[in-house]
């Protein structure tokens, strides 16, 4: 499995938010398309909670479609015939980057809970080194939805003007109480599984499957909208004519959740969910800067497009608009569009034509502007 994964060894020291300094750890990544001669076509994608570096094509580890094939690929909104797309697995993840299931060189055992508690900022710092490695001074665009959007906002605040344009999708500048609560539910489900054993389950080569599946089910409920769920499942029964008066999956919606939950445990590490959800909960951009968000976004030359979805109750339009207001107050160049859809938070991952058209329209127009700007400089 491991030879299929591209890895960068990060040799420079990085000071984590928890005050631990780390170096010589790996960052797994994948690229699509070709970097052109002028290096003006690079797009960095940040993945969400359960994503990985395999944005497009077929994920070589799971043999399933990449998580964003609806948006990224040849002829897609982010056209890999035209653009060079980069995505890295976040640290704390489990698709080849430095994470809790990796071997701790000091103990020769998997880290488990000895892995440091990382933050969104730590993830972003690690990914910035990848840009240096690939020789990209300035990106054409950086984008990401959900936690990917939060990484993007952090990236813009920590490394100002490293990207010409940015599309934060369905995200916020800090995690709301509701989102922290949902993450806590996911973590408690994992930790309540007796197999978890304070994160030391690797020894027995097993996973706390039941807990992890419940954690995933919580997630899936939050990614849909009330209306979307009602339309998709209603009270429909799962391949049966009537109730069975048992606790099997009578309803289609139950069956769907069970399927999603148990498919997930095949590809994701339970401890990674603990670490990554924690990073999301700790995310509060305004807390990092003395002057709050205005300070976080000052001197931005990056052109932003914030996108929200009308039926998203995890990262609401109001929260996305608050990001717009902050960018505006800091004098940044910001556009905002709300996509009207019933598909909830998941809208950015599924085929939502209005969203994909908007994304494509923005990136293509930014590419023209970026090229013109580079040419001006040359003259």
């Amino acid at each position: 499995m491991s030879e299929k994964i591209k890895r960068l060894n990060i040799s420079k020291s990085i000071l984590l938010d928890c005050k631990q300094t780390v170096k010589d750890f790996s960052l797994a990544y994948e690229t699509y398309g070709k970097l052109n001669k002028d290096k003006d076509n690079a797009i960095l994608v940040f993945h969400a909670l359960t994503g990985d570096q395999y944005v497009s094509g077929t994920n070589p580890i799971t043999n399933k479609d990449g998580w964003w094939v609806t948006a990224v690929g040849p002829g897609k909104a982010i056209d890999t015939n035209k653009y060079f797309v980069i995505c890295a697995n976040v640290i704390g993840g489990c698709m080849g980057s430095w994470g809790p299931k990796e071997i701790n060189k000091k103990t020769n055992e998997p880290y488990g809970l000895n892995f440091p508690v990382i933050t969104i900022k730590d993830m972003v710092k690690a990914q910035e080194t990848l840009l240096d490695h690939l020789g990209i001074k300035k990106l054409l665009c950086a984008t990401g939805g959900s936690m990917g959007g939060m990484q993007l906002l952090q990236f813009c605040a920590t490394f100002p003007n490293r990207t010409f344009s940015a599309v934060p999708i369905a995200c916020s500048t800090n995690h709301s109480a509701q989102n922290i609560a949902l993450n806590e539910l996911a973590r408690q489900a994992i930790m309540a599984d007796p197999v978890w054993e304070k994160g030391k389950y690797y020894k027995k080569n097993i996973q706390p499957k039941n807990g992890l599946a419940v954690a995933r089910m919580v997630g899936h409920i939050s990614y849909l909208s009330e209306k979307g769920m009602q339309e998709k499942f209603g009270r429909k029964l799962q391949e049966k004519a009537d109730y069975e008066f048992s606790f099997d999956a009578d309803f289609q919606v139950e069956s769907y959740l069970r399927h999603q939950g148990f498919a997930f445990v095949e590809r994701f590490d339970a401890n990674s969910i603990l670490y990554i959800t924690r990073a999301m909960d700790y995310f509060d951009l305004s807390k990092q800067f003395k002057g709050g968000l205005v300070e976080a976004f000052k001197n931005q030359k990056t052109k932003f497009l914030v996108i929200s979805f009308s039926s998203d109750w995890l990262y609401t339009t109001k929260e996305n608009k608050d990001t717009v207001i902050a960018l505006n107050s800091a004098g940044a160049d910001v556009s905002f569009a709300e996509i009207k859809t019933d598909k909830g938070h998941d809208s950015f991952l599924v085929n939502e034509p209005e969203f994909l058209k908007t994304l494509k329209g923005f990136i293509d127009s930014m590419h023209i502007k970026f090229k013109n700007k580079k040419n001006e400089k040359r003259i």
Partner: protein
Amino acid sequence: MKKEFRVIADLLPKNIRVLDVGCGDGSLMSHLIKEKNIEARGLEIIEENVKKCIYKGLSVIEGNAETELHQFPTKSFDFVILSQTLQAFYNPEKVLKDLLRIGKSVIISIPNFGYWKVRTSLLFFGKMPVTKTLPNSWYDTPNLHMCTIKDFFDFCIEKKININKVVGVNEESTSEIKKSNLEIKNLFSKVGIFLLK
């Protein structure tokens, strides 16, 4: 491009920051960027128009000017433009106050209810006017607070809003409106464009 937009463009200096409130599909913004190297931002309520602007690479925020102008910091733009929409707000006075807060200068255009065709429609036919600048019937018009150039003139004086320049536009010509020719221009202008400070 609309004649009105040309007049607005002429009122603007080069290399400034402009907020176009109700920017539509962005045609005025595109013109200002190209001809005057202006840094233009838009606010637009109609989703379709927002997307058109985004495809053109224009900076636009989807939102309602009635409720969302508070997001723009005080004096953050050299000019704020509001083209023929003041009369459509529930509370035009509040919107105008916000525009004057955000912009160092404000350009507002109003469809003139004092235009002679409007007056004759009421006088001779006893019907609410339907014209090119006022294309809707009484029951489906978005215009809640119609006024004349003279009304708006008086309003600015009453509210102590500094009128820098007023231009009247009709099919044949554009001309400056002053206190001395207000009566006649109020009769013959289809649209009034006010530059306020």
